[in-house]
């Protein structure tokens, strides 16, 4: 099977810090991959490079076999222009740690804005799809509320609906529950679990919720110091960590 | 007439007056700014009211109107001032009103905890003001006062309209005499820009110096 996302020799440096070092990583269609590891290990950067929020310093990222950051012009590979990136982004959606809802729009409009503006859907069509999606995340009674009136868990669920309504086939979750009060984490994880139960959705989940990762992931990758130190099946990885780094990480996290 | 000759002529005749007006108006504005800024926070309603009237009248009416009023209308009430005095007085009064608001908000923005600490240490109001509040407020005021300084410099060009021989007045004279309109007014703009540069640089240095060692 061809990978749906493929990182080849990807490097990213911030100043003196090598955040990602020659990363080779594949994600297969329909796979749910969880990225775990200490802060600053590069997991978020990996997701941001895919979402075109940052450019890799070297290496290639391919989505559906097509080069993300480069395009073919007159037979030569050149730096990708916005038009190409725009085209590639259609397949990818992202949910952020701090939600980033649009404060000047109510919940319904937060979810309909991108479909109408970016996809060109009519207001009615967009609203219909938005309402469906908001029902799915359990917020159909909050359509007229503004983000400032919602709890953290509700905000994140709206953010998830907003990303999903664009119908990406690759969803990135960057620590979706890390900014939430503990009692609100569950409602968001339930929504993510539902999405994971859909076979054709490819998911990249960056999280500190170990049990949850074990539950929904097909594969877990452990990041440390800019490299993938270990990866494998959830139970195998978490019960029998092979590298000392992962062993100490898991013991710290589980204490 | 060459550009350089124009430049020199403008400076020779007009610079002194422009700098004079700027200098004395700044002093007046700062003085009034502190006096009325503090007055605006007085516990006496009458003093607050009088300060308020001064501030609103001089902020609310246009500087050029104030200039004309002092120069043309005041004589009718018996007070005839020279153009130079008028310029300094009007600009000083006008900017004093703006400065007093800057002073007042800076003082009010010093955290109340500072005042409370002073009270707990048994300091008198004056001591608290001079040792704790104003030094901290001063740092906060500087950027805004610096902006006012540049605005004040620019506003001195208005004294040309009451026939005071500043840079702008001299430029108008030169223009009538030589018809080198483009050179004259371009040089005029450049000269004002050149004067403003050390002023804002100086203010930035002052700001940096006063905030030495602070977070």
């Amino acid at each position, binding site marked *: 099977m061809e990978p749906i996302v493929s990182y080849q020799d990807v490097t990213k440096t911030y100043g003196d810090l090598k955040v990602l070092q020659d990363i080779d990583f594949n994600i297969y269609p329909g796979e749910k991959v969880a990225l775990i590891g200490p802060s600053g290990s590069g997991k978020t950067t990996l997701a941001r490079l895919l979402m075109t929020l940052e450019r890799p310093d070297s290496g290639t990222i391919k989505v559906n076999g097509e080069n993300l950051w480069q395009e073919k012009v007159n037979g030569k590979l050149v730096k990708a222009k916005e038009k190409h990136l725009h085209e590639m982004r259609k397949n990818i959606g992202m949910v*952020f740690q*701090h939600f980033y809802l*649009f404060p*000047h729009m109510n919940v319904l409009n937060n979810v309909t804005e991108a479909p109408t503006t970016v996809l060109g859907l009519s207001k009615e069509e967009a609203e219909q799809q938005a309402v469906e999606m908001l029902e799915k995340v359990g917020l159909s009674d909050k359509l007229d509320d503004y983000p400032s009136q919602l709890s953290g868990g509700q905000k994140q669920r709206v953010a998830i609906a907003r990303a999903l309504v664009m119908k990406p086939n690759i969803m990135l979750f960057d620590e979706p529950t890390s900014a939430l009060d503990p009692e609100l984490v569950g409602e968001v994880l339930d929504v993510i679990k539902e999405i994971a139960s859909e076979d054709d959705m490819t998911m990249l989940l960056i999280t500190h919720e170990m049990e949850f990762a074990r539950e929904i992931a097909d594969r877990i990758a452990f990041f440390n110091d800019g490299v993938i130190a270990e990866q494998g099946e959830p139970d195998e990885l978490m019960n029998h960590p092979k590298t000392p780094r992962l062993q100490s990480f898991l013991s710290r996290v589980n204490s | 007439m060459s550009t350089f000759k124009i430049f020199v002529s403008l400076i020779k005749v007009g610079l002194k007056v422009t700098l004079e007006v700027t200098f004395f108006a700044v002093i007046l504005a700062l003085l009034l700014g502190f006096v009325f800024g503090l007055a605006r926070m007085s516990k006496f309603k009458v003093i607050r009211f009088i300060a308020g009237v001064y501030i609103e009248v001089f902020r609310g009416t246009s*500087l050029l*109107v104030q200039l004309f*009023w002092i120069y043309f209308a005041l004589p*009718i009430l018996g007070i005839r001032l020279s153009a130079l005095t008028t310029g300094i007085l009007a600009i000083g009064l006008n900017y004093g009103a703006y400065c007093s608001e800057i002073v007042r908000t800076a003082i009010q923005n010093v955290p109340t905890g500072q005042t409370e600490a002073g009270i707990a240490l048994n300091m008198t109001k004056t001591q608290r003001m001079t040792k704790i509040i104003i030094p901290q407020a001063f740092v906060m005021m500087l950027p805004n006062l610096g902006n006012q300084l540049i605005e004040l410099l620019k506003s001195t060009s208005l004294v040309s*309209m009451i026939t005071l021989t500043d840079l*702008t007045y001299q430029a108008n004279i030169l223009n009538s005499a030589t018809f080198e309109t483009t050179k004259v007014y371009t040089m005029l703009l450049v000269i004002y820009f050149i004067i403003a540069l050390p002023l804002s640089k100086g203010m930035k240095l002052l700001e940096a110096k006063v905030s030495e060692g602070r977070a």
Partner: protein
Amino acid sequence: MWNWKYAFSILPKILSALKITIGATFVAFLLALVLGLILSVLVRSKVKIVSLVVRGFSQFIKTTPLLVQLYFIFYVFPKIGISLKPFTAGVLGLGVHYSTYLSEVFRSGIESVPAGQWEVAKALNFSRSQTWMKIILPQVIPPIIPVIGNYLITMFKETPQLSAITLVEILQTAKILGASSFRYLEGFTIVGIIFLLLSYPSSQLIKKLESRLRTEN
């Protein structure tokens, strides 16, 4: 001293010139808004030359007197073929001068929009202009309305400078009347009062707007 009969006789003439003052204020303000917004976007340009030129231009205009800029537009522009009427030249000068101030206001407003908004807009595949129009500007504008309102009032008080390029607004009207009657007291006092009557309530309104915006947050 003060002559009430004379004061009332010149009031109508001064008030009729008020149209010019207010008209010039509003047109210049509109120009300042549009140009200020354009400048604040251009100054963020990734093309270094553009942002440098824009920054330099704004700095130069902001640091030099409006009066001299008015003279420049009115007397120097004709030398390169652009002859403008006093009203047009005045509005252009006033508008461009204050666009440099407004662009600062817009710039700080834009910078206070959280970076996450830009990122999520990109993730949702909004184009650059869609991001500006639908996401960023709607968040920038409401908080800066009081500041911009204050600049409107400031520009209003600067209009008398336009008399230097022969625009007959209210101060110039009072001056002309005073010159022929040798009575300056009433005219200039009336003009001062008109400015005060219009600007003071306006600034109080803006203060109220500001405090309401602050409590809403």
